[in-house]
């Protein structure tokens, strides 16, 4: 199944000029990347679903939150992926981002009588030439902005991974966490503290009493909104208890999830199979071809219209006459 087609637009026609082995390899790497992408989106959707259950204790709202977080992750990860999909064929990249040198070649051509078929021939010839003259995938066009954008991209991925990691930890440890929360609800020290009356001259004690009352109120189940996944109304309280209970393992789990999210990003950035691959080269050539073709056609029409205006438009009648003649 060609998964890469739905996300990255990898289609057979891009590979008509390359060997079957190379084509199969390109399909493999893009299918794998797509599968990684789908996996990350699925995990993000699950994470949103878990947050929905913890915060709202409602299946429908949880589904909504899951789809919302999944949608956000889909958009942001896709953005990061596409921003990293830049061809390493430097001349093609530079041509694609600045087409003026190609357009200037046609400045003195007679484009008014250019047929569509002739335009297609010119464009195809240029495409062939560019393909033949760009055989080596080498990129040394450094710009400082790429460092800044890389930092932003990594930060974005780490934020998503952090959100996802916390929710996965809730799911993994929810049974143990519920036992802990239940033990806190019935803890003699907390219950006794909450039963104290607030005093007039002891803010320290009052703070303890207020915190104990708040803790118990967060652990008390509402009849009209029973707990579903975590037996607490407070996400932060649950997170604190979980964090205390799993200690340094929380950091390990966070790192594992962060690495999971960063791997496709690093893969896209560093692997020569993407930036130096045939797909991105052909995609760049296709982009140049389209721009070139549309330039020729639009320029032909522009020149025709210009000529018509020059020959037929009553310029003299529209020229503003001096005041004394008016």
């Amino acid at each position: 199944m060609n998964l890469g087609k739905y996300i990255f637009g990898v289609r057979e026609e891009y590979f008509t000029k390359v060997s079957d082995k190379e084509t199969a390899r390109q399909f493999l790497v893009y299918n794998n990347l797509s599968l990684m992408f789908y996996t990350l989106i699925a995990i993000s959707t699950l994470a949103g679903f878990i947050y929905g259950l913890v915060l709202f204790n409602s299946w429908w709202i949880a589904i909504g939150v899951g789809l919302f977080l999944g949608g956000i992750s889909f958009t942001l990860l896709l953005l990061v992926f596409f921003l990293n999909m830049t061809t390493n064929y430097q001349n093609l990249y530079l041509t694609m981002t600045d087409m003026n040198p190609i357009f200037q070649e046609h400045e003195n051509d007679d484009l008014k009588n250019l047929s569509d078929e002739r335009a297609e021939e010119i464009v195809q010839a240029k495409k062939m030439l560019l393909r033949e003259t760009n055989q080596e995938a080498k990129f040394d066009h450094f710009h400082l902005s790429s460092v800044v954008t890389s930092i932003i991209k990594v930060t974005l991925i780490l934020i998503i991974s952090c959100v996802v990691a916390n929710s996965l930890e809730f799911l993994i440890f929810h049974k143990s966490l519920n036992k802990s929360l239940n033990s806190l609800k019935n803890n003699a020290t907390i219950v006794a503290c909450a039963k104290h009356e607030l005093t007039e001259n002891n803010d320290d004690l009052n703070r303890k009493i207020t915190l104990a009352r708040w803790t118990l109120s967060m652990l008390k189940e509402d009849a009209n909104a029973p707990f579903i996944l975590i037996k607490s109304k407070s996400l932060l309280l649950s997170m604190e208890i979980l964090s205390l209970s799993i200690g340094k393992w929380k950091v390990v789990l966070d790192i594992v999830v962060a690495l999971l999210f960063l791997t496709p990003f690093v893969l896209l950035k560093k692997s020569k199979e993407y930036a130096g691959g045939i797909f991105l080269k052909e995609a760049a050539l296709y982009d140049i071809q389209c721009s070139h073709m549309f330039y020729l056609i639009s320029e032909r029409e522009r020149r025709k219209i210009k000529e018509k205006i020059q020959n037929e438009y009553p310029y003299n009648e529209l020229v503003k006459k001096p005041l004394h003649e008016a």
Partner: protein
Amino acid sequence: MKRNFFDISNIVFWLLAAIIGFLFLPYFKNGVYDNKKLEEWVKAFDTIQPQPQPDPIKEYAYKIWDWNDFNGKHHSIKFKYKVGSLASANNNRLSSSIFNPLGEHYKELYTHDTLILVDLIKQMKNYIKRNNLDYMNALEYVCSSIQDIPYTLILNEINGCPCEQPFGSFSANCKVQSDGRGCCDDVMPFGVYSPFEFVYKETGDCDTRALLAFTILKEMGFDVAVMVSYSKSHSVLGIANIIGGAGNSYGTNLFGKKYYLWELTSENWRFGYGVEGNDWKAALE
């Protein structure tokens, strides 16, 4: 076999995914989750050991809070509060972020001022116990103490007073006025005084009153809420677990829990009289 970067990354990704899947197995969970660490956390609630240190401020001021209840009976409470409480309540109000939602702002004021009003609440509670007041009479005892104070409009605009409102004209005098036409401006944010500021200055409009009633009643154990209506730009007290009364006006919280409404801006408005508006929501509960 020589492996390139793609193959290695591919293995790493699926290996990490497998590790996460492995974490769902009970063997891992049992080895990682340590319930004993909570014992340290619970110690923070211990009121015996270590002994919480009394507050160093020992200087108190007094305020007399007197009013006539709905039956015309006079009540008077002389309660104490720490010197500097007014400045503390004021600072706490001003430190609240303007980006906070209204409910969050109410919560900050309530949490801070409950501790200042401890003596007032305690004395009210003692009166209720001593006189064996039932649920409704206890509510009326507290609410009448707030309703007896003449209305004063509170605005968060600079130079907002004097002003014309749909419900009357208000002077530029920020003092208790028997005709209920006083007006205080520049009360940031949201134009609401904190509960202690209201008790001290005796100037307050709808939400300031609802917040004080909430602070006292919540501390006494009543199931109450501060209710707001955005269409009416108004705020009242909400009471749950009680029969609605003749008016049957009520609002709800996020989960649909009903709170019956009690208007606190008028001296003789008793529970059960209808309150206008159909978009009442609990801002603080």
